[in-house]
């Protein structure tokens, strides 16, 4: 194996695939990246058996072959090189990879590529294509609501639902306390009316979003196959992830149809004041209370150890006045994820969920379960 490459190009590819490398695996080869020559380039692959990321970077191939080297070491090394054409050549015994980069002559010990496990693949199933940027934004808006608690694996995932009749792909995440739901228009979707569902680890979905850039404009999702894997193809990058087994709750049903109280106000105003208030809430779980009256929303945050903060914000309020509390961390996360200038919030009762949406749009809903206070508890 022999080829010439540009450090910046290899470095970009490594930074993507490196995310699938096992940090602490009992199998040393899983800490490595598999490098294979392909016509006009090098294919880089890494996997931790649940997630596999493959990227192909341009290179001039002089002699075909493959090898595997420690991923982090190679990434750190290539990342520090000057931008001049470099060569890599595997010695005839296949034990050492020789790199020549400017004045540097480097030898890296390799692991036999035959030891590299076969990469997981999604076989069969259907493929749907969505716009890359919209997908990445949708992922960012939904993963915030996924749980980090590994004891309930279903909730650590994002549910992907492909709806051919509506021509949409929806992403949903909940940790039982809140729900984020994003609907993406599909660019290409197979005919039929059978809905397809897959639950994908939120962390893995973020790797897909990371691959999206100006050059990689589309995301093709292959799901519903015979294996328990879903494959995302983003230009030359292929991310394959194991799905999470389990039943996902029918979260759409939780979104209230009507609202007794709606509040519309500039997102930036609410975001800024909520951020200030959350400083007083101290721990993220401490609540922030919204007192909604005609024309004003008063945000109150407090912490028994520190004190409290109260700020009135002018708002366009319709319907009845209301007082409702939310976890300040969850509330702020929603406002930070929102991509519109105006926020639309709707509520019914203090003990019922509230929703946060971009004003005038239905493609994103963030539903928040309220925090009940002793004084607000139903009498027993």
């Amino acid at each position, binding site marked *: 194996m022999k080829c010439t490459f540009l450090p910046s190009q290899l470095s970009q590819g490594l930074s993507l695939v490196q995310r699938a490398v096992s940090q602490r695996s009992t199998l040393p080869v899983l800490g490595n990246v598999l490098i294979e020559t392909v016509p006009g380039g090098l294919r880089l692959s890494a996997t931790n058996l649940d997630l596999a990321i493959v990227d192909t970077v341009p290179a001039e191939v002089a002699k075909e072959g493959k090898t595997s080297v420690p991923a982090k070491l190679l990434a750190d090394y290539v990342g520090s090189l000057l931008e001049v054409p470099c060569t890599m050549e595997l010695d005839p015994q296949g034990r050492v990879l020789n790199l020549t980069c400017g004045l540097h002559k480097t030898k890296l010990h390799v692991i036999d590529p035959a030891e590299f496990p076969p990469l997981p693949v999604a076989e069969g199933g259907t493929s749907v294509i969505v716009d890359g940027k919209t997908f990445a934004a949708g992922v960012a808006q939904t993963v915030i609501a996924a749980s*980090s*608690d590994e*004891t*309930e694996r279903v909730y650590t995932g994002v549910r992907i639902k492909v709806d051919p009749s509506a021509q949409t792909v929806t992403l949903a995440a*909940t940790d*039982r*306390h*809140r*729900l984020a739901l994003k609907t993406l228009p599909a660019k290409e979707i197979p005919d039929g009316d059978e809905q397809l569902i897959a639950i994908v680890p939120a962390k893995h979905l973020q790797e897909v979003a990371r691959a999206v850039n100006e050059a990689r404009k589309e995301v093709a999702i292959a799901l519903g196959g015979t294996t328990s894997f879903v494959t995302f193809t983003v230009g030359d990058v292929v991310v394959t992830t194991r799905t999470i087994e389990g039943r996902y*709750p029918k*979260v759409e049903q*939780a979104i209230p149809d009507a609202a007794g109280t709606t509040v519309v106000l500039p997102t930036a105003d609410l975001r800024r004041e909520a951020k200030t208030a959350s400083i007083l809430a*101290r*721990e*993220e*779980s*401490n*609540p922030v209370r919204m007192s909604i009256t005609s024309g004003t929303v008063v945000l109150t945050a407090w912490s*028994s*150890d520190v004190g409290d903060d109260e700020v009135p914000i002018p708002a366009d309020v319709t319907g009845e006045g209301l007082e409702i*509390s939310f*976890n300040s961390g969850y509330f702020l996360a929603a406002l930070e994820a929102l991509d519109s200038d105006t926020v639309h919030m709707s509520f019914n009762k203090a*003990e019922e*969920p509230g929703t946060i949406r971009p004003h005038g749009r239905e493609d994103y809903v963030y*539903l928040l*379960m*309220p*925090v*009940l*206070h*002793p004084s607000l*508890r139903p009498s*027993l």
Partner: protein
Amino acid sequence: MKDMMDAMTERIHLLDPVVADAIAAGEVIERPAAVVKELIDNALDAGATRITVRARGGGIAAIEVHDNGHGMVPEDLALAFARHATSKVSHLEDLTAIRTRGFRGEALASIAAVSECTITTRHADAAAATSVRARFGSLLPPVSAGRDVGTSVTVENLFGNTPARLRFLKGERGEHAAVLRSVMDAIIAAPGCSIQCEIGEKVALSSRGGELHDVLPAIFGRGDAAKLLPFSGSVDSIHLHGYLSTPLAHHGNRMHLFVLVNGRRIQNAMVQHAIDDAYRGYLPSGRYPFGIVAIDCPPEAVDVNVHPTKRDVRFVEPGTIHRAVHRAVWQVLGSAPVEGLGPGSPSNGRSLLDDAHAADNSPLQSGSFLSESASHIERSTSVQLVLPEAEPRTGPRPSMGSLGPLRAIGQVRNTWIVAEGDAGIVLLDPHAAHEKILYEELRRGLADAAVPVQSLLVPLLVPMDPATVVHVPDIVPLLMSLGVAVDVFGEDMLRCSGVPALGRGHVTEDTIATLVRDLLDRVNPQEERLHRAAALLACHTAVRLGDALDLREQQQLLDLFAITPEALTCPHGRPTCRIISDGEMRRAVGRPLREPLEAR
């Protein structure tokens, strides 16, 4: 003749005095250690400042106690072996105000009844000593002898006339250990007296006398003595002082916890409960504090004449004693130095007892944490809660020494948080620390029924056996006070629609199931159940070990940790952090403790 014999054995008659004495002696003198205790008591009552105890053959072959007290005049010596002969009590009313250690007038008579006993004594005014010997209850005539002012008692062939008793003894080693414990009791009770105990030919225990502080190494060993912290204070006419272990040091049994009332070692369930209760949540389960709790109260406030061996007492106002003991423990927990090692200086010891008392002039009124919480729950939920019989917690919970502000440096392997503070390098277990923070929050919330509830979008469904489900409605309001909204959902299912809005909120079906079972477990007292419930929820809502925390989250945790009372141990009693002081670090790397600034 045979008929006469039968008549004799069947009819009721007065016991032969020797037999009666042997029976009575059994109550007081049950083992050699009891002999040692009684003889040391007598020596101390005689004003001795130096006592030597010798025991051979488990104390059965021989026990000797020599003292330099005021001794006895020959006329008194003749009476010494008579039952109910004492110099300490004359009138019935004296019994209500006993200030001496012995008083029943039974000790010497009882010992003499079951052994061969020799007393040699010389009164300060007498020219020579007198010696008298008793053999299993029968007195031999006194003879002159030679010795200094003071008394020596030699007890030989103990239980020689009651072989049944011998069979119940624990063997030489066990009896020697018991003798040593008796001597330890005496050293603690009279620290000013120089006491030495020789077992066989070896000096097994020696105290040169001094303040209580000076005898600690003799009793606890040098290592444990260094982990004891002093306390003192008064409530009404009750004065408490002593030394107790910090939460970071503990024993597997209660052998080294000495409770004294007016200088007498006792074993009292109420005092024990007060100590256990105050330490609850500071020590791992099955571990006990050690130390000395000396209670001084007016003689009329306590009845010591409950048990022949004077092992237990009755308090006229048990509630006051309970509270006083409780506060004393808090004082120790509150003054525990940050590093949890090395004794605190008694001069710095704040007198929390006095402070607490000044703020609360009616110590018997229950204005306590638990009764407050209970009354709140009652008010808000109309559930009858069973209060523990003993006096509950009172006043503000003490803080276990403040670490001061801490600055997060980073997290090692997504596990330990490294921080810097005034005390040095602080290595924190984020789970245990967060657990403690949340536990305190839950306890506070429970007290004012103010734990906020995070309602759930997808309720937790908890399968449970129907026999348990039946009882769940009884505890629904209590669960609500803990921030858990549960209702019965079919005969074998519970539905949880709200969890405490605390921490990370990782409450699962299992958490709810355990919580419900713990709260329904009537075996444990209410206070214990509430503690367990709060500890369980705190544990499950806390950051897990292995959760990656960014610097902001680490700092947030440290800020809360620094203001949480007694944060050095988690609710299960395990330490939450390790502090490496500058000095410790310097020693570890072999640098001088102080070096000039220019040195590198």
